[in-house]
């Protein structure tokens, strides 16, 4: 089920009413409702893959219980190994099996051999990368004794499959989300209203901005040969905005729905388009994944301790894994590596922890220096999307070469002229996005408290305008980009 579908518009109010009015007195039943509704939500896409979530939940629940009982360190290690092996094994099979086989065949073919191995027709289960990491965080935290094992299987299963963030995050840590299933949840008016605002802003970002940008970006990326340099460069910038609005839109909706149900999820994006450095950009982009990698991979590897060479190596490994997490394709590996190369210099000079304060705090406009920093960071990141958005390395190479060779200016205007209406629409909504997010850059989300001081007519007028723009200018129910990961 997509958040931007009619099915979901019917599904959510039904669950909300049953949740707060019918089963609100019994926590167990309330959690059971969340579990069942999460399974319905996921099964709507393909019920067969529910078995994977259930299997993963059973394994980690059992491992957690056994970790609680095991006294010997060796046994505990074995239990953690089982959890990691099964979870990563499932992810590896469904997401990476064909990639490894194809790469293996390519490597052998390059040396003149043709091994008789075949790829399989495997469907990638939606959200597998997200819920696998979520359950893994539980096993690892129980192993590290940071979290008590769960004895309540309904709560645990509901934690693994919690529908607002099941298919595209934020990837919640068991230490944050699981305890919320144990406590009775109270309805909070302010939190719920702000949750609705956050959902509204998330929908606006996804349906109005991202889906309208998609109409411009897709033709550019699909035919780089036919596009001029200027259009291709424009495509990079627009895709940067598209991927941000698409993914952060999803996160905003997920967090908003959770707040309606009395849960608090962690923030996943903190206005990364206004980042002043690569370090700040990565601190504010897909925070739940970055911190997951930091805590479970980067720090155990040694993190930023040791020699500069060690730091450099760890950074590149981290970014490459992060790229590979996105998809089984060399393009994502290159994307991760390139980001690692951008990030490494500031890390080696110890400057990656700069810019912790919100930009231009208590000022209306950024200073010239800040503006230059934002501009440079934005374009550096945009160049990495040559890899991220391309179908394969050949495609990204083609895109890059076309930027260098197709320098005919008139062609650029022709493309814009041919797509003028879509272009103007996309630009208009992108400007609104930048304006609203700039105004609210120190708040948890774009609509947080924006209109609080305004008279009700103005406030409601603006909410209604956003609602209408979602319904009127929304694209064609395009799936979220991150669903494919």
């Amino acid at each position, binding site marked *: 089920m997509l958040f931007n579908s*009619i099915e979901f518009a019917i599904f959510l109010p039904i669950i909300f009413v049953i949740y*707060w009015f019918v089963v609100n007195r019994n926590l167990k039943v309330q959690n059971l409702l969340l579990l069942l509704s999460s399974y319905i939500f996921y099964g709507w896409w393909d019920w067969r893959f529910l078995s994977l979530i259930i299997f993963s939940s059973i394994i980690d629940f059992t491992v957690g219980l056994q970790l609680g009982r095991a006294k010997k360190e060796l046994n505990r290690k074995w239990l953690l190994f089982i959890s990691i092996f099964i979870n990563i094994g499932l992810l590896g099979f469904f997401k990476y099996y064909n990639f490894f086989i194809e790469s293996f065949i390519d490597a052998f073919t390059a040396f003149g051999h043709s091994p008789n191995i075949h790829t399989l027709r495997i469907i990638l289960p939606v959200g597998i990368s997200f819920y696998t990491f979520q359950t893994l965080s539980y096993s690892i935290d129980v192993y590290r004794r940071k979290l008590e094992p769960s004895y309540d299987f309904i709560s645990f299963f509901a934690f693994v499959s919690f529908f607002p963030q099941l298919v595209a995050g934020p990837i919640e840590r068991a230490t944050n989300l699981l305890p919320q299933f144990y406590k009775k949840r109270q*309805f909070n*008016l302010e939190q*719920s*209203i702000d949750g609705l605002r956050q959902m509204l802003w998330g929908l606006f970002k996804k349906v109005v901005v991202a889906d309208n940008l998609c109409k411009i970006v897709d033709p550019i990326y699909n035919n780089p040969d036919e596009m001029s340099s200027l259009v291709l460069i424009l495509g990079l910038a627009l895709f940067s905005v598209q991927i941000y609005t698409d993914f952060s839109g999803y996160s905003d909706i997920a967090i908003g729905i959770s707040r309606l149900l009395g849960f608090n999820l962690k923030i996943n994006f903190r206005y990364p388009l206004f980042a002043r450095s690569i370090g700040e950009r990565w601190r504010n982009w897909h925070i739940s994944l970055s911190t997951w990698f930091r805590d479970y991979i980067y720090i155990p590897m040694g993190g930023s301790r040791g020699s500069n060479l060690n730091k450099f190596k760890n950074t590149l490994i981290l970014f490459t894994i992060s790229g590979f997490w996105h998809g089984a394709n060399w393009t994502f590996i290159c994307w991760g590596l390139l980001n690692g190369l951008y990030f490494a210099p500031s890390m080696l000079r110890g400057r990656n922890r700069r810019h912790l304060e919100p930009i231009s705090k208590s000022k209306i406009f950024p200073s010239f220096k800040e503006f230059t920093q934002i501009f440079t960071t934005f374009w550096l990141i945009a160049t990495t999307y040559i890899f991220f958005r391309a179908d394969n390395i050949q495609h990204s190479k083609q895109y890059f070469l076309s930027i260098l060779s197709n320098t005919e200016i008139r062609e650029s205007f022709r493309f814009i002229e041919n797509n003028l209406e879509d272009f103007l629409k996309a630009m208009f909504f992108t400007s609104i996005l930048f304006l609203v997010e700039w105004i609210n850059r120190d708040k948890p989300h774009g609509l947080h408290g924006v209109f609080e001081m305004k008279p009700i007519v103005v406030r*409601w007028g603006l909410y209604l305008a956003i609602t*209408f723009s979602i*319904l009127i200018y929304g694209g064609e*129910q395009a799936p979220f980009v991150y669903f494919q990961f």
Partner: protein
Amino acid sequence: MKQFLKKIIKYVLAFSLIVVGSVICNKIFINAAGLLKLKNEVNTIVLGASRTVYSVNDHMLTQTTNISANADALFYSYIKLRTLHSNNPNLKRIIVCLGSRNLSDEIDTRWLTSPSHLESRLPQYIHFYTNKEYYKTWEYNKASLIHGIMRSPLYTLKMIKKLVQSRNLDIRILNIGGFKVDNRNILTKEIKSLNENTEAKMYNISVLEANNLKDIYDYCKNKNLELIFLDTPIHSALQNSTHTMDAETYFNNFINENYSDIPYYDYSRMKLDDSCFNDLVHLSYKGALLFTEKLIDEGVVQ
């Protein structure tokens, strides 16, 4: 919780009020301005899609109004027929453009269920909808029905602007049809593409459009209106293509089986030179003049 629900209900009410209010406003504007009233002497209307838009020049006619519109499925033709007849009881004859292409199942995805098509059509037609049409559109595409309805307030604003600016208050303001001149000339390109593309295509009658045609037929029967089917000229290159001939055979069988009592004026093979066409199926201004003269000569329109 009560406070929250109250706010939600108020918001939904405000939202619905704007949408429903704008649909009602549109209806009131249209009726108050008499936009659906045709000239007293008009007793014939022409319904159909782009082929009749560019071929029946009603400026040459006194008793006929061409109300066909580009890419209009028979679903919309039926809505127009019902609405115009209730506002113009003196209508006697209904001409519906009908050829194999109008009833092809390709129309379903292009003109009936396509989100962009539905969403652009809905605000123009929604104030004429009955429950049956709401239901049908829901069946065609649920999301688009909702998106389309939401566009009504925008349509109302445009309507108000047009009513204020326009000197002649007539049906053309509604933008639901009328004769147009096609200025594109892509005939050579299309002939070339037709010759290159010889791949056989399957022809099937659209079930949805067949039902809409049945609605038109039943309405005319019940209201004692004379129904006529009309097919407009197509270029000779297309006439002789295998696909066209197969489709025509299939289509003719369908018409003979179901509508043998309806007069069918088939001008698809009318001889016209290249200057009369802008592409393979649409007439140029010159073509429209010649074709309309022919219709007058044969007494199809006055």
